[in-house]
């Protein structure tokens, strides 16, 4: 039975009974069927496309986009910049909301998750109600509510709510003080990077000192060293000028403007994902057996030490894998920006294929963009996961 010998003995196993032959045959047939299926679809499509518009090519990406975007993290001129640039700006807008969303959702989820376990009955009930409501309604509807009922009913730009610190809130968005960079900015950046190296050296040196005050807090000290150097350089070079928002003409000028669409999308994603993260955090904390906490206390660890050294590492092992899924969901859900008009990659792409009619190419580009974002996110989270997994023996 080892190999199909040509002799008459092997007749006992004809080729259609030989498991190995059948295995290979089955796979070939499977692949053939799949290929046939795709060939069929593609064949239909090429005919469909030829009926409608030109051939499959990405050449259209070089044409001038000729549609303006409401939010452009990079300078963008629709008259000259190509569709590709518009698409990239969409990608950047998506990343803006995804990164901020992940950070804030984690924070909210942590707070709500701990609050669910609070000994205060009212607080834990509020947290539970929050989780129930936001988990059990569609994100799309939540976004509509945030945008139409929440953000848009803020005061108009002329009656902006002036908050302390030159912050203005209106339904044109949140105007924050920001800064404009001077010529010395690059120089200051170089100094600041150099200061990181200095701080690293300081950290290393403090590690050899036996004074507990210096040794135990060497991370903080190193950071302080860096801060002092960076601030000193900032005072000396004055790399930025503060820019305060003010109403001029129709809108706020200067400062940093967070648009209502961005705010609504961020709020929607944060509150929705936060509810899921809260449950994950709660489950993670509950997964740490009480006995372990009590044992660590019995060994003389303080409450904070027990939390830091025992509970959190153990809980994180349970928390990180589902948390990764939630981060990925958040990234993918950001595509709902289209419902409220935030210029993310999906929305921009929509306009592109609307104008060019190159549907297939644009959909492939969108999928590519999200796949890259998803893969990057899960790669990062895998590294984090691996760090905490080391605890396992």
């Amino acid at each position, binding site marked *: 039975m080892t190999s199909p010998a040509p002799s008459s003995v092997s007749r006992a196993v004809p080729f*259609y009974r030989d498991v190995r032959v059948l295995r290979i045959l089955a796979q070939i047939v499977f692949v053939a069927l799949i290929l*046939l299926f795709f060939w069929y679809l593609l064949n239909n499509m090429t005919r469909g496309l030829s009926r409608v*518009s030109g051939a499959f090519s990405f050449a259209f990406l070089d044409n001038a986009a*000729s549609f303006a975007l*409401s939010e452009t993290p990079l300078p963008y001129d629709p008259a000259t910049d190509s569709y590709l640039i518009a698409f990239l700006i969409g990608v950047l807008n998506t990343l803006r909301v995804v990164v901020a969303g992940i950070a804030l959702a984690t924070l909210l989820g942590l707070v709500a998750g701990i609050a669910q376990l609070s000994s205060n009955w009212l607080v834990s009930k509020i947290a539970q109600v929050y989780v129930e409501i936001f988990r059990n309604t569609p994100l799309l509807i939540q976004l509509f509510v945030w945008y139409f009922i929440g953000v848009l009913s803020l005061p108009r730009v002329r009656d902006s709510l002036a908050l302390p610190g030159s912050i203005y809130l209106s*339904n044109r968005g949140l105007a924050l003080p920001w800064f404009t960079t001077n010529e010395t900015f690059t120089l200051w950046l170089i100094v600041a990077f150099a200061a990181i190296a200095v701080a690293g050296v300081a950290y290393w040196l403090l590690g050899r000192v036996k004074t507990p005050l210096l040794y135990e807090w060497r991370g903080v000290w190193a950071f302080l060293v860096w801060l002092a150097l960076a601030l000193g350089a900032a005072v000396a070079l004055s790399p930025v000028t503060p820019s305060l928002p003010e109403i*001029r003409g129709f809108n706020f000028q200067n400062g940093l403007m967070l648009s209502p*669409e961005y705010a609504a999308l961020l709020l929607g994603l944060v509150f929705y994902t936060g509810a899921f993260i809260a449950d994950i955090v709660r489950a993670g904390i509950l997964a740490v057996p009480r006995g372990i906490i009590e044992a660590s206390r019995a060994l003389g660890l303080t409450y904070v030490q027990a939390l830091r050294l025992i509970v959190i590492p153990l809980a994180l092992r349970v928390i990180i894998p589902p948390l990764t899924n939630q981060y990925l969901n958040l990234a993918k859900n950001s595509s709902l920006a289209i419902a409220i*008009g935030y210029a993310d990659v999906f*929305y921009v792409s929509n306009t592109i294929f609307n104008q060019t009619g190159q549907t297939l190419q644009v959909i492939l580009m969108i999928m590519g963009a999200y796949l890259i974002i998803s893969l990057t996110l899960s790669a990062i989270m895998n590294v984090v996961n691996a760090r905490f997994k080391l605890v396992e023996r």
Partner: protein
Amino acid sequence: MKRDFRGFALLVVVAVVAFAIGACAGPITTVPTAAQPTQAQATAAPQPTAPPPTAAAQPTAAPTQVAQATAAPTQAPSGGPTKPPPTSAAAVATGRLKTVLDRGNLICGVNGQLAGFSVLESDGSYSGIDAEFCRAVAAALFNDVSKVEYRPLTTQNRFAAVQSGEVDVLMRNTTFTLNRDTAVGLEFLPTTFFDGGGILVEKSLNATKLEDLAGATICVLSGTTNEQVLTDTFNSRKIQFTPLTFPEANALYKALDEGRCDAATSDKSQLAGQRASILSKPDDWVIMDATLSKEPLGPAVLQNDAQWADVVRWVIYATWYAEELGVTKANVDDKLANGDTNTKRFLGGTGSLGKDMGLSPDAFYRAIKLVGNYGEIFDKTLGPNTKFKVPRGLNVPYTQGGLQYSPPFR
């Protein structure tokens, strides 16, 4: 033994499946154009039995008889309204027209979210000028305005729906442009609404020319010609502005009303309509004089089907022509009986205009009888009696200085 059988059976099954898929894929790749006429004749036979009950139930039963009685050399209308008798020289329905007639209803792609043009009513029907034209075509085809299946489409999927043949005709306030006529693969039919791109601003801003809007936030619908026009116009004049795009009109005007943007750009009729209906203080808003662009809004069908395009085209012309002749919903019966030769020929009393298109002789009569002429449609959906009070502007017959110039019905 069992194992033996299984392996062999697997092979046989796989082979059969592969063959079946191949067999399906094979013939479909070549469109059987040659087979179509014969199919048409084969399926033509059972068809006439369906329409008569509906025809009899409708008020138009009488004029069909009139047409027969007065001058009907070919006795056409006695059969179904859709099928000319084989003896006549009338056109045989092929392509899309045949598909629609066989199916028994018209699939009409509409907006569904734009009051005045097409909007979903509480009872599940659609109202608005685009919906009325869907009904007019259905009336001409089937003598029954209820034989319309509305398909709400977004700006994103409207062209794909025509390209794939999912809808028979697109009546979705769509601007006729060269690109859409050629690269997108549509065929545009007579413009049902001559419009122009305009800008709606708050009166208190005292903006009279575009330059006054420098630095303003301007709301616009995404995927529309207005979006491109806005960018082009402002950029060429070097006026700085912030666009804010929305996927649907409702969101846009809500945002405008709440002060999220300073101005909105769209077709002027839409601006007028939305100002009157959605903005909380209509009098605080004004449409600027400047016209940014031409916006001829009209129906579109898939290109390369002349017969079907003709049907929709001439139904629209019919609504214009009827207004020109003074034929209305109310007096159409009278005109058919006592009108002049032109009117009678138009309404199917004499001649074979309808049949030449592959329709019933009284196709235009039905459209007018059941839906009305252009003026009536307009007044009902957008005109002074509605909430929108849209001025007719260029949408009046050429005799009154408008752009509606119907070719002769002869």
